[in-house]
C-alpha cells in the first residue's frame, strides 16, 4: 500500500483495526471513540465547511456530528463504510444548522437562479497550452489558499457536490444520498463545478498565482 492510500483512504489502510474499534465502541468502550474518528476529522470538518462556509460554524457542526455519531454508533452496520456514514451524519447536521439559521430563503433564491444555469451547458473559456500540474504545488500555502478562494466563489450547490465527491471521495450515489438529490444531478453539478474551477484557476494564472511554479514560459498548467 502506498502512502497516499493511507492518507486519502484510512479505511483501506486499517480496515481490520477500524472494525475492531467500532465493535469495541459499540460494546461500550466509549474511550476508544476518538481513536476511531480521528482519521476522519479533517474530512468531517471539510464536509461541514462545504455547506456552512464559516469556519466556526463548521467546527461546531463537526463536533456535534461526532457526538451524534457516537450516540448512534450501535445503529452502524458493517456493510456501510464508516467514513461515508460519518460524513452523511455531518452533512445532515450542517444542513440542519443552515436551515435553522434561516438562510434557507436565500438558498432558495440561489437554487432558482442555479437551476436555469444547470439546464444550459457550461463551456470552458480558457484553452491555453496545457501541462499537468505537479502536486508539489500544494506545499505552498499560497497555492492552497488560492484554490480555497476559488472554491469559495462557487455557488453552494456546485461546491457541496464538488467537495463531497472530489475532496471527500464519496462516490456518485453516496453524494446523491448525502445531499438528497439524484445521481444525475450530482453528475451534472460535478461537471459544471470542475469546469468552472478550471477556468477560475486559469484566470488565477493570469494574475500570477502560480508565477513561482516551475512551468515553461507561456504554458499554463491547464
Amino acid at each position, binding site marked *: 500500500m502506498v502512502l497516499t492510500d493511507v*492518507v*486519502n483512504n484510512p479505511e483501506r489502510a486499517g480496515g481490520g483495526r477500524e472494525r475492531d474499534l467500532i465493535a469495541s465502541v459499540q460494546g*461500550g468502550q*466509549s*474511550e476508544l*471513540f*476518538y481513536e476511531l*474518528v*480521528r482519521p476522519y*476529522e*479533517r*474530512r468531517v*470538518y*471539510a464536509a461541514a465547511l462545504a455547506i456552512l462556509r464559516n*469556519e466556526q460554524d463548521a*467546527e461546531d457542526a*463537526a*463536533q456535534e456530528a*461526532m*457526538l451524534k455519531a*457516537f450516540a448512534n454508533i450501535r445503529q452502524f452496520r458493517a456493510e456501510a463504510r464508516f467514513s461515508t456514514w460519518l460524513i452523511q451524519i455531518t452533512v445532515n447536521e450542517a444542513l440542519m444548522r443552515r436551515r435553522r439559521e434561516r438562510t434557507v430563503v436565500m438558498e432558495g433564491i440561489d437554487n432558482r437562479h442555479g437551476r436555469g444555469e444547470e439546464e444550459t*451547458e*457550461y*463551456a*470552458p473559456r*480558457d*484553452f*491555453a*497550452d*496545457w*501541462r*499537468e*500540474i505537479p*502536486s508539489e*504545488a*500544494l*506545499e505552498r500555502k499560497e497555492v*492552497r489558499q488560492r*484554490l*480555497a478562494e476559488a*472554491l469559495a466563489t462557487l455557488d453552494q450547490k456546485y461546491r457541496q457536490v*464538488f467537495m463531497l465527491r*472530489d*475532496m471527500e*471521495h464519496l462516490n*456518485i450515489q453516496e453524494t446523491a444520498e448525502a445531499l438528497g438529490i439524484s445521481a444525475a444531478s450530482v*453528475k451534472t453539478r*460535478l*461537471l459544471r463545478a*470542475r*469546469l468552472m*474551477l*478550471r477556468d477560475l*484557476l*486559469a484566470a488565477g494564472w493570469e494574475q500570477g498565482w502560480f508565477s513561482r511554479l516551475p512551468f515553461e514560459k507561456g504554458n*499554463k*498548467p*491547464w
Partner: protein
Amino acid sequence: MVESIRHCEDMWREISNYIDGEVEPGLRSAMEEHFHSCKRCASVLVGTRNVVKLYGDERMLEVPAGFSRRLEKRLAQDVVGSARGWSSCSAWLVPVAAMVLIAGAVMLTNSLTFRNLIKSQHALPANNIPPDLVVVVSDGSRLFHVPGCEFIRDKASERKMTAKEAIHDGYVPCTRCLRQYLKTGLTHHGPQVAEVDDADGDEAKEEFLSTAGH
C-alpha cells in the same frame, strides 16, 4: 450515447465522466481519438484533471489551528464523560434497585396485611362457631344471626337452623351478634373503628342488594 465525436461540446459534456472512468468503451475510444487531434479539448481535459487531483489532495482539507485538540476535549467531556457518568450511575444503581425491591416487597406485604384488615369479616370463615348453635336466617340477607339479633332483616321470614347448616348453605355470620366467634385477626390488631365501619359497610351493601332485588 455519443459514440462519434462531432463537436468539442460533445467532449466537454462527457469529460467529467471520462475522468471518473464512467463512459462506455466505444465513447472512450472516440474521445481519446479526439484528444489527440484537438488541442482545446486536450487543454480542458488536463486542466480538469488537475482540478480533481489538486482538490482531492489531503492537504486541501486543512482544519483550523487547535481543531483536533478541541474536538478531543469535547469528546472526552461529552462522550467519555457521559459514559463515566453512566458507569458511576450504574454503580449506585444496583444497590438502589435492590433497596427499591426490598421496599417494594415490604410494601406488598403491608398492603396484603392491610387488605386483610379492611377485608369484610363476612368473607372470613366462622371457624369457631359451634356447629350445633341455633342461628337464624331470613330472606334478603346472606347473614345468619343468633336469635333476637337486632340486625335481622325481614324478621317475618326468619328461619332457624344450625350454624353448620347455615354455613353449608352459604350464609356468613353476623359481625354484630356473632363477633365473639369470628377469628379475623382484626381484634388482635385492634382497629375497632375499621371493624365497625366495615360492618356498617356490609350492612349498607346488604341494604343496597336487597333494594336492588338481589
